[in-house]
């Protein structure tokens, strides 16, 4: 004990730059759920009476989680069930299920990804306190939720609505956020301004440093009540007496050394990689190397009965720059030839634009999204023969290739929409996004298909029209600088604006407020057009405009 020499307060001792907090701009949220086990326990219990969860530890039933009421009655964790019953005779108990609680936490972590993609668990063994915790790296995310205060308030409100007690703190380091969430107990979330981790931590108890029970026991015996007292010691002395952990934890909490937060994204299951020690500088060679890589991935996928829906190819250059190509597949596939071909197409297209610098030294292929596929039934005795893929998957493979080269916005299918306005009646949707169209959609029978043009202009084009009577069919018109003499006309087909859209405000397009009178026109060359007059004369407008909308074959 004598070798613990007291020193000046820590901050005056900081002379060297290594102690300067790194201005990383990182912001970490620590969430602490002190009653997680009981509050996530969903088998139900009487809320008005004390309730505890018990676990069998070393042949005794011990309390592992208590409700706030039970806590008020003097119960605490680690006490034996017999003692607890002595204190509260009508105690409700239930056996704890650790996996279920863990599963709930996992789900919650996933849900919290709505705030930031970077959500992690507290490292195991960190928690001498009760309850469970999660960490969120919200660097650069808070402004999306109107600032940190609003974001934390939102998080807390949502947990409260589900009856879960949560303490939250945000700070620049994991250690500080963790400690503040647990030991600066206040109703509102703790928001620590940047660079103030050291000050904020000094008056917290040593337990705020994520130490083991042995360390805390030692602190108690030495009479060290807060972090400041611990920080006063010279670090070599501290290390000698306590081991390296307290020094490391302090430096992490103060932001002197970095600490990684591992997000709880599941490890990709279907991942293959290839190291290329020489560095490949030729794209065609790279494309060739993809063949074995895809074959390897296909074996993995097939073994699991899965097909890839999304593939990511990550190329690492010798200068550590990373390039990623990702592909979406129309239909889950585990066919290596198909994957190779898609990537080869993509690489070929990149040929001019891609810069592989001094070479690619690592290729990594991940099937980041998969779906189960039924393995094709192979006929006995035909093992060696190549089978043509069934039509559905052949089509899917074609669509993949088209999308791979042309982009998903170019490969579309028409989807009939419930609308009477001609240009709204059909939408072109990317094939990947739109499910197979329902051909028996009742609505599409409404306007007879024989009265619609085969081609519809992308936008109605204004035309100059001469009509003898304002309500009548045109008599001569000029479209795209060509004069057309009308020989025959049929119409009008009156299409009124969809007033219900206006009322319910589902869609509002200003140009569609007026009634349209559509005419089918044949001119002296035999060209057939579909044009309309926008607005009823003298009722909706004085100067009706005419538009060309479609062309008949």
């Amino acid at each position, binding site marked *: 004990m004598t070798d613990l020499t007291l020193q000046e307060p820590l901050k005056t001792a900081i002379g060297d730059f290594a102690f300067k907090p790194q201005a990383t701009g990182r912001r970490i949220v620590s969430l602490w759920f002190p009653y997680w086990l009981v509050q996530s326990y969903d088998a139900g219990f009487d809320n008005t009476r004390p309730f505890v969860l018990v676990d069998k530890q070393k042949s005794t039933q011990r309390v592992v989680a208590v409700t706030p009421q039970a806590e008020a009655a003097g119960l605490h964790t680690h006490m034996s069930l017999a003692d607890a019953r002595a204190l509260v005779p009508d105690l409700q108990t239930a056996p704890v299920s650790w996996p279920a609680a863990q599963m709930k936490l996992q789900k919650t972590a996933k849900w919290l990804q709505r705030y930031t993609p970077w959500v992690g668990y507290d490292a195991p063994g960190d928690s001498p306190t009760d309850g469970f915790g999660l960490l969120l790296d919200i660097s650069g995310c808070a402004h999306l939720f109107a600032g940190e205060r609003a974001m934390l308030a939102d998080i807390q409100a949502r947990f409260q609505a589900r009856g879960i007690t949560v303490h939250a703190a945000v700070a620049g380091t994991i250690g500080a956020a963790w400690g503040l969430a647990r030991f600066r107990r206040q109703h509102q979330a703790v928001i620590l301004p940047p660079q103030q981790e050291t000050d904020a931590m000094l008056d917290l108890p040593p337990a705020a440093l994520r130490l083991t029970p042995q360390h805390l026991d030692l602190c108690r015996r030495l009479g060290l009540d807060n972090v400041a007292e611990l920080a006063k010691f010279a670090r070599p002395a501290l290390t000698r007496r306590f081991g390296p952990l307290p020094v490391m934890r302090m430096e992490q909490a103060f932001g002197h050394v970095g600490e990684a937060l591992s997000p709880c994204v599941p490890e990709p299951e279907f991942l293959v990689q290839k190291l290329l020690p020489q560095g490949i500088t030729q794209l065609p060679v790279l494309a060739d190397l993809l063949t074995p890589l895809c074959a390897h991935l296909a074996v993995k996928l097939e073994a699991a009965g899965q097909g890839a829906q999304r593939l990511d190819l990550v190329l690492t250059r010798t200068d550590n720059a990373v390039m990623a190509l990702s592909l979406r597949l129309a239909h889950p596939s585990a066919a290596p030839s198909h994957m190779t071909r898609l990537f080869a197409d993509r690489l070929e297209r990149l040929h001019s634009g891609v810069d592989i610098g001094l070479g690619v030294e690592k290729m990594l292929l991940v099937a980041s999204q998969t779906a189960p596929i039924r393995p094709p039934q192979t006929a006995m005795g035909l093992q060696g023969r190549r089978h043509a893929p069934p039509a559905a998957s052949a089509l899917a493979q*074609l669509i993949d290739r*088209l999308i791979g*080269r042309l982009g998903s916005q170019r490969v579309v299918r028409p989807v009939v929409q419930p609308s009477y306005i001609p240009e709204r009646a059909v939408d072109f949707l990317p094939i990947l996004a739109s499910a197979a169209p329902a051909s028996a959609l009742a609505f599409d029978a409404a306007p007879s298909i024989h009265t619609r043009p085969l081609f519809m202009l992308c936008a109605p084009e204004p035309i100059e029209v001469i009509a003898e009577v304002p309500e009548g069919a045109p008599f001569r018109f000029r479209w795209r600088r060509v004069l057309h003499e009308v020989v025959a006309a049929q119409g009008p087909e009156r299409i009124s604006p969809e007033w219900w859209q206006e009322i319910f405000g589902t869609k509002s397009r200003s140009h569609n407020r007026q009634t349209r009178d559509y005419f089918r026109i044949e001119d002296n060359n035999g060209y*057939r057009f579909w044009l309309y007059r926008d607005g009823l004369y003298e009722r909706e407008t004085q100067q009706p405009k005419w538009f060309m909308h*479609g062309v008949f074959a």
Partner: protein
Amino acid sequence: MNDAKKRPQIHALNRQKIARLRKKIQRFESLSQSSTHITTGFDAIDDYFATHVGGGGLALGGVHEIIAARTGDMAAALGFAHHLAARFRGAQTALLYGQTHAGVRDTGQPYAPALMARDDLIYLDGVSLPELMWAGEEALSCDAIGCIILASTEEAPNFTFSRRLSMTARSVDRPLIMALGASAAGTASAATSRWQVQAMRNNGWQLKLTRLRSSYRQTPPAQGWQVFATPPQSDAAHFAKTTPLAANKHQSAAN
């Protein structure tokens, strides 16, 4: 023989070689003659095919070019293309329809309520001509595709492209229809058939068969055929089924 006289420097041995190669090419080209022939659904044309053309119809496998007679006839050409596609396409197969940027600007996009093929349509919206050719070749080798229509208003594919598509189409016995603008009329191509379409008054088309790569006993009529009624399976049938257009009463006054 004439060639040989003009260029006596060609050695007899080389001539033999050339003759041999020519024969070989001929063999390649005649190798995969389509066995399936499809009628057009227009009686006048089908009569001609039945009596004068080997196979009695349009060969299924091959490139069929449909050319607009005038600039404004592109829609009619495409209408005929969709009509043929409906004849060519079997059940349970999809139609791939690709259009270049200029085509989208010119005639607009296909309008689903007027399309018979709307449920099995894969539409490529505004791609460049080389991409269109590439997509056509990819689609030809796909068993789930029943017919392909590629539309390019402003430029026609060069002979190499055309030949390539033609060979593929014939080898897989699948039809590919190229709808081209009026400027394509004089271009060289390896197409199995080439049609010229002109819109006519009273919901009609004038169809001229300007080229046919089959054995025929009599050349197609130079003036073509005038067709008015279209069979019900056709995509373009919508105008034939409606009541005749009422003559515009102002017309007589104008003329």
